[in-house]
């Protein structure tokens, strides 16, 4: 409770400070007025936009244009300016980039990531984007346009989720290149085989958990597929209950079952003491298949390391 009270106090203080703050940036507030003439920009319609931006003709089949009509009753004619703002001044500049009116259009991809995201969040600030603001990606200046191509001419044919890359994982690998290598290690989940994606475990749009996990903890994320490991068990193995990544590296490993190192060393990280847990097992020609180092090491006998439901399962061997 002490921590809860502290956090509540800090949150409240910050809220008061926020109330005093003045700056606010909204897409609809950006560049609506001509710096030269002071005229206000007005809506001109999509056909005018496509007059110059013919390359975006495919937007007619884009998820956005369909959803805008169905969800908000915004016809295609008004779709461009829903995000880009009224375009009369921009259109009036006739492509002259030196004309200040040319810059009165909102182009989210040219805004700073947080400002660009504000345009998208006008409609998308619910569901999985509920916690975007202040999330790891947001605070590290990753914006919606870093991953999504709203017009999606090249990606998945204008269909959800409008990613820039044809494969979702490739979008993540732009920045997380080391993971692209890791998923190819000897023991890996079927990401390379296309049976899983990064977003099966992570919510890149922000989440209450660390590492942008889709669930509230590491274990809950793993239990999505490994429900058999959820238990509860009569005999629990404490580190297993607390976090699967104590022993496994879910992105891929040199070792079988994606273990971070192999048994018996894996177990000897924690079990040092009497009798066999702390014996320096080595290989010898005469004893190559010593069951404490060969094959699965300790797990050759302690088969139920994830927990046992057996009344004689104290040592997780039943």
């Amino acid at each position, binding site marked *: 409770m002490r921590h809860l009270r502290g956090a*509540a106090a800090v949150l409240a203080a910050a809220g008061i400070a926020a109330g005093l703050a003045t700056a606010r940036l909204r897409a609809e507030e950006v560049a609506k007025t001509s710096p030269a003439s002071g005229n206000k920009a007005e809506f001109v319609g999509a056909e005018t936009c496509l007059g110059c931006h013919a390359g975006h003709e495919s937007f007619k089949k884009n998820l956005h244009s369909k*959803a805008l009509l169905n969800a908000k009753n915004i016809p295609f004619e008004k779709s461009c300016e829903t995000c880009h703002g009224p375009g009369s001044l921009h259109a009036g500049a006739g492509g002259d980039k030196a004309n200040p009116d040319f810059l009165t259009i909102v182009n989210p991809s040219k805004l700073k990531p947080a400002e660009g995201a504000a345009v998208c969040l006008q409609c998308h600030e619910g569901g999985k984007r509920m916690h975007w603001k202040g*999330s790891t990606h947001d605070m590290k200046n990753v914006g919606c346009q870093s991953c999504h191509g709203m017009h999606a001419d090249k990606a998945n044919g204008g269909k959800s989720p409008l990613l820039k890359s044809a494969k979702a994982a490739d979008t993540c690998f732009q920045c997380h290149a080391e993971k692209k290598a890791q998923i190819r*290690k000897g023991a890996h989940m079927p990401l390379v085989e296309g*049976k899983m994606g990064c977003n099966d475990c992570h919510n890149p749009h922000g989440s209450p958990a660390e590492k942008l996990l889709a669930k509230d903890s590491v274990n809950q994320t793993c239990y999505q597929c490994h429900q058999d490991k959820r238990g509860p068990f009569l005999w629990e193995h*404490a580190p297993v209950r607390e976090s699967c990544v104590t022993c496994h590296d879910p992105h891929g490993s040199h070792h079988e079952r994606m273990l971070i190192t192999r048994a018996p060393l894996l177990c000897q990280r924690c079990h040092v003491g*009497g009798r066999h847990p702390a014996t320096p097992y080595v290989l010898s020609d005469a004893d190559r298949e010593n069951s404490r180092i060969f094959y699965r090491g300790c797990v050759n006998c302690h088969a139920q390391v994830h927990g046992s439901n057996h009344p004689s399962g104290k040592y997780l061997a039943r």
Partner: protein
Amino acid sequence: MNGNLIVVLAAVLLGAPAAAEVTQQYDVSVQQRFQKTRNGAPSARAEEFGEKPNGLLFETYRMDLDTDGYEMSVEGSNIGRNNQFLKTEGGRPGKFTWEVSWDKTPHLFSNEARTFWKHQGEGVMDFPDQLQRYWQSVDVATSGAGSGANFNHRASTGGIMYATKNFFYVPLGFMTETGRMDLKFHPSHHLHVEVGAWRQTRNGTKPQPFSFGFSNALEMAAPIDHVTHEANLDVHYVEKDYQLGIGYRLSDFNNQLPNLWVDNPKRFDHRAIGTHYSAGDGGASGILAMPPDNEAHAVKAEGGWNFARDWRVSGELGYQLWKQKNPMLPYTQNTAMSNTNPIPEGATYTPPFVAANPSSLPYPTVDLNMQVISYMGKLAGRPFEGLRVALAHDAWILENKSQKYEMPGFAQFDQTWHTEAVEPKREELREDKTSLKLDYEVTRWLDTNLGLAHKYFKRTREINKGREDEASLGFTIRPSREFFLNVSGLAAFRRANGYDFQDVPTGVTSAGATWFTDAPGTRRPDVADRNRHQGRVQAQWNRGDAMVSVSGRVTKDAYRANDSLNGNDIRVRSQMYGVLSDLQQSVATDLSVPLCEALSADGYYAVDFASRRIRSGVSNTVAGLAVHQQLPGNEWVTRVIERSHAAGIAFNWLPLAKLKAIVGYDFMFTRGTVDFVDSGRGTAALANVSSITPTRKMHQSARTRAEYKLTQNLTLAANYWFEKFDIADYGFDEVPVRDINNGSIWLGVSDRNYYAHTGSLGVSYKF
């Protein structure tokens, strides 16, 4: 699959007008694969997550139906194969959408598993009585029943020959089939509802270890028959300035084979003995508790409110219930373990009841109940232009509401009764984190990030409280829209004062000395004091279709102890054991570059290095002391090093409008070493320690593909793919079915080198 039928069905389902725009595409190929595996045994690794057959293959099918406002698609991949995926989705985006899918994903472990245990149904794993009787007779003849000597039937050539004849091949792998339905609809444009249901079955076998005694590892092909049902309901109310959401999720896991009843290959009839652990010849059979049926319920409520000017507060409150209720298994199947059949070693080895009788159990069921309460609150905003702030607090509280179980003892290896009151620990955990993140735009091209976090842990373990303080500083340099450079560093200090020495489990040796199952100086890496330093650099350049990204990361963990390592017991050595340090470094690059109008290249390269040092120590009985003692001469440090290199390059060439060619090569190499350093060499075991043979894995694949667009609708494709896998691993190389030195029985599953050439000719037809 009849595509026209699907179109008609779709039109009926959607009431689509006849003018609906429909496109379909079939990809069909004829494939021939030649694979060679070391020693001729078929390699499972090549087909771990999907078969690679020869002959006619239906690669993909896709149909898109599009009308004004309605859309529907049907897609399938690897159709008819064991890794097929089928999906249909559609609806009116923004109003409602639905999705139905069915996925098959195999996980093949081996094609060469051999065993003599046969699953007779209901989890009964047995083998011919004749075989069991024969081995027992060899045992009695050579060592005498209950003599205490190691069971040495393994020295009997005849016994091994006899056993080998009874091994038969079993498939080792399971199939996961998942069917799911999701419906999203928007009764109004503020209200979003998502309903989903999901059913997954997992059937097959997996390698399952078991043991009837020390150094008597046994391995079976254990049957798997799991069924899981899940359902979810999520409702979101979305306004421009506030959003609310509630959700419920049910997960019901059912294991059709919750227990395995395993025959002991070394014993035909039960006997109870107090020693003889290394023989593994006490009980004639044993029970293994497999994952029990369980269910989980989760509810959550979340919301966010945009207030003031560019500020937002959001939060989530969640509650989960994980529970199971299943009959408690008997202590053992060994009917010889009873008060009417005392064994000579002593009273503690004789249970006060018939241990195999379920009525001897203090509880009829295992009725467990865990609850998780989680919450998060976050305030994020912009106090003034250029500065963004996020302040958050979250908590994850696992409470164990299970009843207290207490047993008067337990059966060890189904042969020996241990009279020792045991009480399974009810694990609990609480984690709180308060964090503050700041992002300040110093100039248009420079941002700086500052992060501060405080974590607090509470557990029911040897360390029951801990905290971690973390600070990070980073810079983002963005001189143009096309380039950015991120540099960041983090320092985190975890402290877990108050290692509970009394919580270290102890046992009593036959000589009456106390021994510690874990040395008091052990500091476990998931809870121990730790100083972490981390640095990261990332640079990325984008222009048009070109992208080059380079990143590097270093994480250095140093583990330490700042409290008593011997519990102030001078008989116990004050030394820290466990992980001492951990170092991880990686550098990676990813690029996609158009080289000229007709040629582009994609590539990546990553290298990582990890080094870990672990200190261990053998404990010895010391004359005159009532405890097992850790001695300096009995300690050693293990250094574990792993390196990996991964690289890939692919060229996409479009020499003609109708011709496209792709050439690619991928490479992955990993190597692990284990060295013993700083050994005191004070015991016989330590005197001879030497480095363990390094382990290596290397996978290479080269692919070429050429596509020629014969007509607007017809494309021909030719593929050639070469794949090579090499492994050197002492633990998984040439695994025998019988280990003649130790008496272990394995499935004989080895990870094998292989190479394969695959060629295919395909047709893609679009209409």
